[in-house]
């Protein structure tokens, strides 16, 4: 049985519109006070809440093609996911069944699944740094602070007071710009209205110069995302695992859609593409 009328924030990213410019990633970092380390080419320790993966179709010249998967936190719902491609967002009410991979494993409730919004929160000040959640996430959307951030002299002036900078030794990740929701709620409360679609948009959505990112309430027919996820071209990353993400992608290109999940038929090809390393 499904709860359909709930507020569930989610995102649709149009891969065919994404030009991989990275504006989303940078806007995200400036919104959320992400630091920069002396060596950021060490990708397996570099904190990018929204990482733009580059993929290619592995075909020879001149049929080569690249595309981009901007990857925020998927804010997995867990539970029984909608069938691949099937758009309507489903969720399981049984708490045992419906659990987010990372939330259920955190020993200290430093990350939580907000039942009112479907947003997976992160509380760095409570995180003990066991990294169990990092191990649990197949999207590598969770990042551990391996270092203290060396803020260059003066740069803290440019930091936003709405998101506190993290300390070393804790995990952080995309929160769908939760601080923005807070502000929207406050405004709505003062104004006596409800939080409208445009009142709460994430930094990446706003920034994207080609409007490839759409954000809103997946189960609210009035919101754009609700229509978009019904499309036959909509898909999600690693749907077979049943993580039931709330971030959808769209592409007319079959190879892109194939690249989003593991397929026995493609086992070899995907491996080749992965080891091809054009990322």
């Amino acid at each position, binding site marked *: 049985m499904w709860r359909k009328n709930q507020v569930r924030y989610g995102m649709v990213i149009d891969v*065919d*519109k994404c*030009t*991989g*410019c*990275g*504006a989303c990633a*940078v*806007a995200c*970092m*400036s*919104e959320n*006070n992400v630091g*920069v380390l*002396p*060596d950021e*080419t*060490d*990708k397996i320790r570099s904190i*990018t809440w929204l*990482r*733009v993966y*580059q993929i*290619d179709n*592995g*075909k020879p*010249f*001149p049929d*080569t*093609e*690249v595309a981009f998967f901007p990857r925020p936190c998927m804010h997995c719902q867990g539970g029984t996911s909608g069938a691949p491609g099937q758009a309507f967002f489903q969720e399981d009410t049984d708490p045992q069944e419906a659990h987010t991979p990372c939330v259920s494993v955190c020993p200290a409730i430093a990350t939580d699944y907000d039942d009112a919004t479907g947003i997976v929160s992160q509380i760095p*000040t409570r995180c003990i740094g066991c990294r169990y959640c990092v191990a649990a996430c197949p999207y590598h959307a969770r990042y551990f602070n391996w270092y*203290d*951030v060396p803020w*260059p*002299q*003066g*740069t803290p002036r*440019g*930091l*936003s*007071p709405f998101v*506190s*900078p993290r*300390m*070393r030794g804790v995990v952080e990740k995309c929160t769908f710009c939760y601080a923005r929701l807070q502000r929207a709620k406050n405004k709505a409360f003062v104004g006596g209205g409800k939080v409208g679609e445009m009142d709460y948009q994430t930094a990446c959505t*706003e*920034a*994207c*110069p*080609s*409007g490839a990112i759409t954000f809103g309430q997946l189960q609210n027919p009035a919101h754009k995302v609700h229509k978009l996820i019904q*499309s*036959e*071209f909509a898909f999600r990353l690693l749907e077979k695992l049943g993580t039931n993400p709330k971030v959808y992608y*769209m592409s*007319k290109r079959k190879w892109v859609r194939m690249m989003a999940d593991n397929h026995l038929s493609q086992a070899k090809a995907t491996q080749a593409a992965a080891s091809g*390393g*054009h*990322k």
Partner: protein
Amino acid sequence: MDWDRRTFVKFAVGAVIGIHASPLIPKFMDDTAIWTQNWNWVPVPEDGAVAYAHTVNPHTGTGAKAKLIDGRVEGLRAIRVEGNPNHPLSQGGVLPADASALQLLYNSEIRVTKPLLRNRSTGVMTQLSWPQALDLVAGNLANLAKNGQAHMAAALGADPSSTTGQILMRLMQALGSPNVAFTPTPRETMALAGLFMMGQPFLGFDLANANYIVSFGTPLLDGFGAPVAVRKAFAGWRGYPKNQARLVQIEPRASVTASQADQWLACKPGSEGLVALAMCRIMIDEGVYDRAIESAYGWNDADGLPGFKSYLLKNLDRAKTASLAGISLPKLVKMTLAFAKADRAVAVCGPGNSGDPGRLYDFMSVLALNALKGNLGKPGGVVAQQPLPLKSLGGALPEAKPPALAMAGRPFGVNNVHELAQAALAGKPYGLKTLILCGGNFVFNGPQANVMHDLARKTPFVVAITPYMDESAGMADLVLPSTHWLEGWGDSTTPFGSAVSCYGLHRPLVKSVDEAKDGGDILLALAQRLGGPVAAALPFKNLGEAMAKRTQAMGDFKKLAEASYWAQKRPAYGAMRFNTPSGRLELSSRVLRNLLSKGGRDADKTARALGVKAGAQTAFLPHWEEPAAYAEGAAYPLVMQAVPSLRTTWGDEAVTPYMVKILPDTVLANTDKLVVEMHPATAQQLHLQEGDAVLVESSAGSLTAKLTLYAGAAPGMVFVPLGLGHKDFGFQVAGKGMNFNRAVKVTSDPMSGMPIWELTGVSVKKVRG
């Protein structure tokens, strides 16, 4: 009582129980927990009243919205740069460079805060007061002027159309020096092509309304014109279940544009213009072209010179051309017919991937193709922008006597910073005594960085006006701190390719660091100190005042400043007015002909002298000249081209820490190694493998990098990311990768005289490391 074992044990046990009973332990744990959340080296940003202010980033042309916070302790500060939804071009979108602008603004480790005098021998910097610094420069210039050597002072600026650029020009002109050059842009090539063929210097592509777009090697989606605007248009082309418009990309590499395009025709490097001509030929052969063009001057032979039609029919065999360009003819024909059939089709020319201003004849060819398509002045076609209603800063000033260094015997003066530098270095006709670098960071951006480096090193007195301790400042004797665009006044004009003209303006939003002044203010103060004609030519108290005068026609300056932009409402549709000698479209340019035969010179000879092989036979026609890079010889068998990316650079600003952070390891590999792309087959021929350290060497310079094999790279080429390899800009940016512009060989376009460096002949060798 005495302390026997028993008492001790009792005491110990008692103590343990006591401690556990007391709140000591929980209190201590609580405190430690709190402490871990308040490490004093983790910054705590101050909260305060939030306000937004509109502005325009002059480097990207993006309409931005700065988020400001007024803190009780910290005062007013910017915490974010977001997009301005009202801005007609960027419509709320931003680029990485915009979104991370604060990282440059607030990094006091890279900002220049006070005037600094550098001792060349020791390299030691000493602080000066502003009066001292200005007197030093003014004294130097005045001295030159006194000895009739004013022309031995040169100034390089970022943007000639900006008010600061205008001030710089007037300053030097009034001083008596013809040597002012600016960062070369495709806007100038476009202006020339437009003037020569249509008498229209300001042309744009109505991308938003086109439904069939053929791009000739222009990196539409990797960085072109106003990148955000182009992306907004691109977003409109896309749709489900099928796209609204068809994009065809013609270039040698599977770039982002090529990949996102509906069709990618991989061509030989530098043959894009040729493809445009081939399309013209096909359209003529198939008779699918707008008959109106037959009335154009130079369609048929005229004045004993071949017309465009006969030139194509005679010299441009379809099959030969296609194979020369490396494109399958059937594909090309099919595409051309679709292009001709489409109701709102446009052919786009522009800067190359390496960010050069483009080749004049290629631009002319593409314009001709558009004319053949008959889309001039039509929605989704090539339109003329309404010229910006900008007043000039004052009356015309007398031309400086001695010829400009960059003229190099050309019939018309052009902005060629590279020729200026080379002539000055060679001392032909004369050398430089003073060099003013006003923005643009030429020592890094070049175009040929090593030449600009030498120029700065050889010139006795170098002044750098810059917000940052950048490469140019590092070479300067005197560094004058100018403001960041969020701190001061400034403006920018219509970006390349835009269908509507647009003026961007930025004003001081936050307190400027220490003693930094607006670049314009510094120049004006200099003018005042120089006095005489110079002061008279620039009678403004400050840059703001100058901008106010210049923008009078745009209405109330205060309102304008707050809106931060002025823009033409809608593209100027309707029959295009041709301000040519013939009053018609000129496929064979008479303007050009007149220029070449100015002063009774033989146009044919001049043309040949300038490097147009067929001389007058083709010099005035859109035609194709083989790129110089082909003629580099066996020593440099490969062709090098840049990979532009909004992640590495846009405009003349430096890459920011966040931009470096999001670079994939196919651009910047661990640790901080530049990565160059090559086709697997080419690598095999050179016995190179994935991950090899290679030396990319041209006749002008070199760079070392890590090699990656990319099937999408054209064989016989090597592709180098653009905009990395800064020596300065702090530990987050310095030493990341290598500078493409240190390896390029800059040549001059035969006819426009603009510097071009789209392609460079190189050799690639494996090296240790």
